[in-house]
């Protein structure tokens, strides 16, 4: 094992153990999106009667949303864990070692990614148990989990950036709800072509989260839609690159070795 891989593995193990020892960090991100899914799929079932609605099951339509919400929780958890390490001085002590910055960043996100994978499998299982049938089949299910992991990684990198920038758990907690704006102003509850309010449709169209949702949704209700998947993976990779870029830049400032 190379030195870099060893560094990443050590920190990732610590991150995974720490996350699993906090039941609130695991249970709440699992249950809250499912609860919202239940409420919305019951309350908005009538929406399927609108002409042009793409499916007759609102549960299938809305199943994509928990994957994004799970990613948003990853933002908060990653940021709070890293901010705690800054506040307790753990990061400063690491700075005294020869550990590379990138190893720290990737390793710190290990716990979040393990929860993200658990979430994705859980949401998918809930959908299947309640009667959703994936139009893209079993392989489509695996692609959904892959896309969900990519989304969580991207959001978690932004959480890490917020933590490295501010160094405060309170600040990360305050920033976390801002990310929810992107979920609210998106195609999470209605297809973009059925949005009758122009400004909302415009915001939903420029909002990258819409394309992440539509990518997952296409695998559930459409089948293999190349355009939706290319857009979703393209946006997902873009979010990962931007998040890691910003986090790495902030990390190099915070780990400035004198």
């Amino acid at each position, binding site marked *: 094992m190379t030195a870099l891989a060893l560094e990443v593995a050590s920190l990732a193990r610590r991150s995974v153990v720490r996350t699993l020892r906090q039941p609130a960090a695991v249970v709440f991100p699992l249950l809250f999106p499912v609860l*919202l899914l239940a409420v919305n799929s*019951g309350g*908005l*079932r*009538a929406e399927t009667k609108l002409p042009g609605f793409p499916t007759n099951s609102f549960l299938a339509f809305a199943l994509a949303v928990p994957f994004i919400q799970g990613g948003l929780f990853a933002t908060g958890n990653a940021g709070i864990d890293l901010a705690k390490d800054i506040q307790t001085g753990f990061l400063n002590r690491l700075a005294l070692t020869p550990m590379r910055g990138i190893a720290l960043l990737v390793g710190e996100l290990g716990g979040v990614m393990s929860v993200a994978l658990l979430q994705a499998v859980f949401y998918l299982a809930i959908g299947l148990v309640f009667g959703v049938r994936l139009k893209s089949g079993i392989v489509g299910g695996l692609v959904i989990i892959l896309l969900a992991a990519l989304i969580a990684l991207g959001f978690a990198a932004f959480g890490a950036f917020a933590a490295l920038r501010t160094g405060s758990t309170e600040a990360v907690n305050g920033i976390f709800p801002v990310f929810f704006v992107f979920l*609210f102003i998106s195609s999470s509850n209605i297809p973009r072509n059925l949005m009758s309010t122009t400004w909302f449709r415009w915001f939903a169209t420029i909002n990258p989260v819409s394309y992440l949702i539509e990518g997952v949704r296409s695998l559930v209700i459409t089948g293999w839609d190349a355009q939706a998947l290319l857009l979703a993976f393209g946006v997902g990779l873009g979010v990962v690159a931007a998040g890691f870029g910003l986090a790495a830049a902030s990390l190099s400032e915070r780990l400035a070795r004198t």
Partner: protein
Amino acid sequence: MNARQLNDVARGVSWRQLHNALTNPVIFIPSLAFPLLNFAAFAGGLAKVRDVPGFTFNGSYTAFQFVFVLLQSAAFSGVFFGFGVARDFETGFTRRLLLAAPNRTGVVLGYSLASAARWLITASIITAVAFAVGMKVGGDGVDLFGLYTLSLLVNFAGTLWSTGVAMRIRSQQAGPVMQFPVFLALFFAPVYVPLSLLTGWIHGVARVNPLTPVLEAERGLVSGEPTHTLLAYGVGAALVLGFTLWALGGLRRAEAAG
């Protein structure tokens, strides 16, 4: 003498709480931002739901959702207030307050009055935004007075509920206990469509949810077609009475805890 002591304590506590809330953006902004965000997402994004066959509300979807958002802001403004009470327990302020107050019931009354004053500011802003985006109201002045006083009852109930929780747990970790039941009660009501369009389990839950008649009555008042108004006021008054007993019980527990 008792009434005067009650009044003095209530006035002092409410002034302090209101001052804190209005001078600290971290406290005030979330209680304003969440309803506005929901208003944008629901009224803007889901306007097409108004076209679902059987949607019986006499008015625009903006007015339909304005009522829910107003009710949500009233309830959550009260809940957010409980966070401050819990924080005061953690810092030791409440212990000193209970020692100094000649009439401790005035502390609970003061919390309720401050929360109501803060919510009235929030409600004014939400109302201004709703009119700015073109909401039309069918009800007259009396109907609108009824709408706001009914919401005010819900605000009192929310504050008394969260105060009771804060006084029992005396830690900010009580946050989810305060929020979660209120969240469930709000979203298990007919949020997106009238009760008659709900089907399945959510219809059964909404029918027995005490907030359903309140929401339906408020929608009746805003559209100028009052419905279930007396029932809704009865529910509102019962919630206030029940949670007053709950909050005073919490006060006794806090006193006993020393």
